[in-house]
């Protein structure tokens, strides 16, 4: 069986198709930044994670340094246990603070890491001790209204009875 022009065209077609898949992976997608094999995991416990989702970004100084790999509920402490996979290229001190932040007013939630001053570095499987929960807008508003009502008309108990019990998020 000799080579034919038909083979050439099929070759061009298959090459174009594979090239299109590569373009989708590298130019349209973000294959380069996904290096889950080169990652170490740390955990952090939060009182309230708000709307944090798995695969949300972990940023430090605004730069993406990892992803949220797992979110679980711990029924011993009644806290959310968030597992973060961080890029191996970056190390953080042991006393790093993890906070759940929101990008923009309506944007998605991510975890911000604020580096501390310790000499020891976080290693695989470590736990971040200092965390700051997500700001829940409803609690914020009810706190505000409550303090406004308490300060405005001298200590009328009426709005306090109607306001929901504020839990957790007062900093």
């Amino acid at each position, binding site marked *: 069986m000799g080579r034919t022009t038909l083979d050439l065209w099929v070759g061009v077609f298959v090459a174009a*198709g594979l090239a299109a898949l590569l373009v*989708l*992976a590298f130019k*349209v997608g*973000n294959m380069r930044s996904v290096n889950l094999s080169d990652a170490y995991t740390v955990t952090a416990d939060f009182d309230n994670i708000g709307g944090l*989702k798995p695969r949300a970004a972990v940023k430090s100084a605004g730069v993406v340094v990892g992803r949220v790999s797992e979110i679980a509920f711990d029924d011993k402490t009644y806290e959310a246990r968030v597992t973060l996979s961080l890029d191996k290229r970056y190390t953080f001190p042991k006393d790093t603070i993890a906070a759940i932040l929101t990008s923009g007013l309506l944007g998605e939630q991510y975890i911000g890491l604020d580096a501390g001053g310790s000499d020891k570095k976080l290693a695989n499987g470590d736990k971040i001790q200092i965390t700051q929960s997500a700001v829940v807008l409803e609690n914020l508003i009810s706190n505000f209204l409550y303090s406004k009502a308490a300060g405005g008309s001298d200590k009328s108990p009426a709005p306090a009875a109607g306001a929901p019990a504020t839990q957790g998020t007062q900093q």
Partner: protein
Amino acid sequence: MMRIGVNFFSAIGRRVIEGVWRLGYVTRFLMLTLLRSCTSLTRPGLVIREIYSSGVLSLIIIAVSGLFVGMVLGFQGYETLKTYGSEQSLGVLVALSLVRELGPVVAALLFASRAGSAITAEIGLMKTTEQLKALEMMAIDPIARIVAPRFWGGVISMPLLAAIFSVMGVFGGYLVGVVLIGVDDGAFWSQMQAAVDVRHDVVNGFIKSCVFGFAVTTIALFEGYDAPPTAEGVSRATTRTVVTSSLTILALDFVLTAFMFKGV
């Protein structure tokens, strides 16, 4: 009055029995095709010829449609996003709609009407002119020699066509968004790359296009093989191929989307 009622129910019954009968037949046909694919492996020339007729010949319509779908997405997306002051997200909108849904689905619909109908008409005509019987007379299995190469040709072509469709669409969106309207070039690509996940979006779209290719090719081959050996039979079989595969693609797309993107 009584007669009309009885006829009505017996008509429903006939259609249901017909449907179940065809379902069983198509399953057996598919199994047989898969079992007798060895010929296609030992003679890759047969499959390459079918990749040419269903893949290469569909290339133009797929590429042009992809380009235009992307350009329309660019215009419409810009109009809507402008209202919220987030024109920068145009790349995200275009790329996600194409990679997740429009690429696989529209490419599969075009594939069904361009290549699927051709397969059905070809095999139906072979049956009508008794070429399939002639092959059997010469002790050549028509499923191994005619059906299996077309099956693999279609299954291989479809994901490649869908990928080409998506890339052309993204390029069309880029042409309209960045070149024509003037969205920032860097933001277009960087936001797109930040939002499109390879495992979650690109691979799932690829899986979808593989499933659609499998379904469309099976339906096209079966309708041709099952066509009544008359001119009218072949024409009806061709119509049925396009209608059935289009509906199957849309139904499968719903099921696959529900499995893949259940709101993570």
